[in-house]
């Protein structure tokens, strides 16, 4: 057992923290700041800030130098993610590209794709969306119906995607398309890269129950996509997608822990403002939530240990997903409970603006749905970890 990071990682942390201290506006560190900014303005602020961070050398932390990365270790990546949270930096607006697409391109992209995709993404010149889910194909990805028909050296794509983060603001989308007519389930799929600005691509924002519109629907009507804009090979989409999704290995756990403890502290402050932090019953509930956050931290350290040693995580990412999503959602259930009658109001007293925490509380209802619902994750754990016989 050794929970320290190597000296070079700690040096990196010091360097990063110095940069963050100089480059995070004080206003951003006020709890609830981002709920006070309009969605358009917030996006622009975040995009620009992240670009500057990249130019300062704090992007692609664990990517090879040849791709513009820093050539660091998984530990440095975890430190980066975690210190950003601690410094109240905004979340990345390009995370689907950075986390999923980029390593996939590095692994199976053509030389030209590597050049065209990775650098511009790193500098936030191109914001990437993901187009996997469809109406009727949420947890069951293989049921998707968006299809592309080859016409010359272009695919003519028709269909609809849903739950696309930043659909209205992104520049390009990586998306699963059925390119082999008559194929079914996992066969005949391809991962296509499409410009969001081309004729026939339309976006409709989806307003969430919290009132925010981070998601959108994307409609393709006779969109023409050059066959060269396929990642991982035509007809090989399922394998490419599985590779792509494998890069979410729960390595974000340490920064999630940092973020959720921030939320926990914020919730404690609210309880105190309402004079309820001394209530023995609420204290037990808060403590119970804290237990799950601490366990998430341990799980994240476990995952980082495995990743650093190059071990195959297998279905461990399902364990991580279940733990973080339920710990996070549960924390906000306790938040709602401790508010008592104030739960109905955004500003229960003059000094207490709960708008941001309230939006986060609604948001937590979604985290057990997307990215593989809790039900899907439990099936994976039951069958692949416990080895229980498959249900029919």
């Amino acid at each position, binding site marked *: 057992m050794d929970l320290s990071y190597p000296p070079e990682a700690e040096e990196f942390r010091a360097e990063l923290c110095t940069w963050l201290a100089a480059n995070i506006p004080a206003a951003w560190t006020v709890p609830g700041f981002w709920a006070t900014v309009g969605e358009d303005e917030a996006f622009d602020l975040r995009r620009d800030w992240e670009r500057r961070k990249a130019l300062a050398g704090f992007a692609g932390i664990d990517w090879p130098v040849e791709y513009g990365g820093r050539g660091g270790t998984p530990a440095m990546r975890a430190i980066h993610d975690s210190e950003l949270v601690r410094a109240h930096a905004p979340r990345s607006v390009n995370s689907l590209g950075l986390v999923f697409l980029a390593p996939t391109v590095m692994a199976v992209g053509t030389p030209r794709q590597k050049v065209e995709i990775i650098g511009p993404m790193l500098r936030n010149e191109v914001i990437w969306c993901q187009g996997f*889910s469809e109406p009727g194909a949420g947890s069951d990805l293989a049921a998707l119906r968006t299809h592309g028909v080859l016409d010359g050296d272009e695919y003519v794509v028709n269909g609809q995607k*849903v*739950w696309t983060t930043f659909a209205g603001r992104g520049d390009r989308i990586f998306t699963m398309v059925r390119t082999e007519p008559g194929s079914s389930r996992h066969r005949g799929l391809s991962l296509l890269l499409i410009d969001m600005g081309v004729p026939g691509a339309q976006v409709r924002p989806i*307003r969430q*129950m919290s009132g925010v519109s981070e998601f959108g629907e994307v409609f393709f009507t006779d969109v023409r996509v050059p066959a060269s804009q396929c990642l991982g090979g035509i007809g090989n989409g399922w394998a490419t997608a599985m590779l792509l999704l494998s890069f979410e290995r729960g390595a974000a756990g340490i920064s999630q822990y940092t973020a959720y403890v921030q939320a926990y502290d914020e919730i404690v402050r609210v309880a105190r403002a309402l004079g309820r932090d001394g209530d023995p019953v609420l204290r037990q509930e808060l403590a119970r939530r804290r237990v799950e956050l601490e366990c998430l931290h341990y799980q994240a350290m476990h995952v980082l240990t495995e990743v650093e040693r190059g071990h195959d995580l297998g279905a461990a990412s399902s364990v991580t997903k279940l733990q973080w999503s339920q710990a996070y959602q549960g924390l906000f259930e306790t938040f709602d409970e401790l508010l*008592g009658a104030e739960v109905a109001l955004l500003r229960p007293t003059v000094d207490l603006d709960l708008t941001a925490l309230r939006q986060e509380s609604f948001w937590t209802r979604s985290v057990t*749905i997307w990215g593989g619902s809790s*039900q899907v994750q439990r099936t994976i754990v039951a069958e692949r970890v416990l080895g229980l016989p498959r249900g029919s």
Partner: protein
Amino acid sequence: MYFALTDEQRALAETVRALLADRFDLRAVRAVVDDERGDGHPADLWRAIGEQGWLSVCVPQEHGGLGLGLLDAQVIAREFGAGVVPGPWAATVLAGAAVRRDGSPEQAAAVLGPLGVGELVSTVALRGPGGGFGPGGIAVRADAAGRLDGAASGVEYAHVADVIVVAATEPNPPGVDAGGGSGRGSGGGVGLYLLERGEAGVRIERQAGIDGTTRLAALTLTGAPAARLPGSDAAALADLLRRGAVLAAADLVGVARAALARTVAYDTERVQFGRPVGSFQALAHHLADLHVAVTMAEHAVLYAAHALDENRPDADLAVAVAKSKANQAAGDATAAMVQYHGGIGYTWEHDTHFFYKRAKRLIAAFGDSRQHLEQIARLTVDTVS
């Protein structure tokens, strides 16, 4: 032994359901919710409710009301919950109950008739900012002349109410009502006051809330003249809180049953992995557990309303049981509704969030589970010999 609604009560439920389906379905609710600057009080619905006599359900017949009990009122509340219906119906019924119980004959005559036919919108203001439900949560003081100072928060529809029943602490507890000699409770420095919205010293500000189906407002009172309900005292406040808890529980039970039914319907149709989602056993068993919980909550609300109507000795216990069980059933059922609708359940354009948010509000209204469970402990732990 007849533990069930009567045929008349069942018919009343049917009538409410039919009217809502016909004239105020979820599209109409959505229009109210989306009109965030509107007052959240659709006039046509209010007229229809008034015409049906549902505002006068508990108004005595001598004042032109139906003269029925809380058991009948909860039938309506439940259907309103199932339809996530906007408007100050419950608030008005509660204000009427206070005037009926503790008002002078003149006050009763002046308020109950117009209230019953929909001419008077009323509400109750029982707690201050950050305060709980009960005497300790009141932040309004009355002086001997009946002038009110202080604040109330989260008051349903105060911004459209003509008359507001305000709970206030009193510096010198007045003697028990001299004339009526009701002999209720021990006074204890709390009174209920009838306040008109237009009076001097009354400031009402809308409060942004999470549940678009029900609008809330804050009251700031500075020497506002009000008329004391002469029979009111701490017991009167407790009675009002009990009734409020039962109506909130009934609404929650309606929300919960509707959430469950809509989830069952959706997942019977929705296909994933080549099968209807509702055929997956983990989901099906969870919904079965929710059916049991919702059924128990329905029973509990029935029993509590009856116990109050009949003044049964275990009425206090029954109310606390009903509210805490309804809280649990509705909280679980609406959370499951979001989860088992998949991504769509989390969107603004789907109706799911109406149910989820209304449940959130009501779970804390008229006492959260923490408060009611401690009440149950007082009644069942501390009394064991």
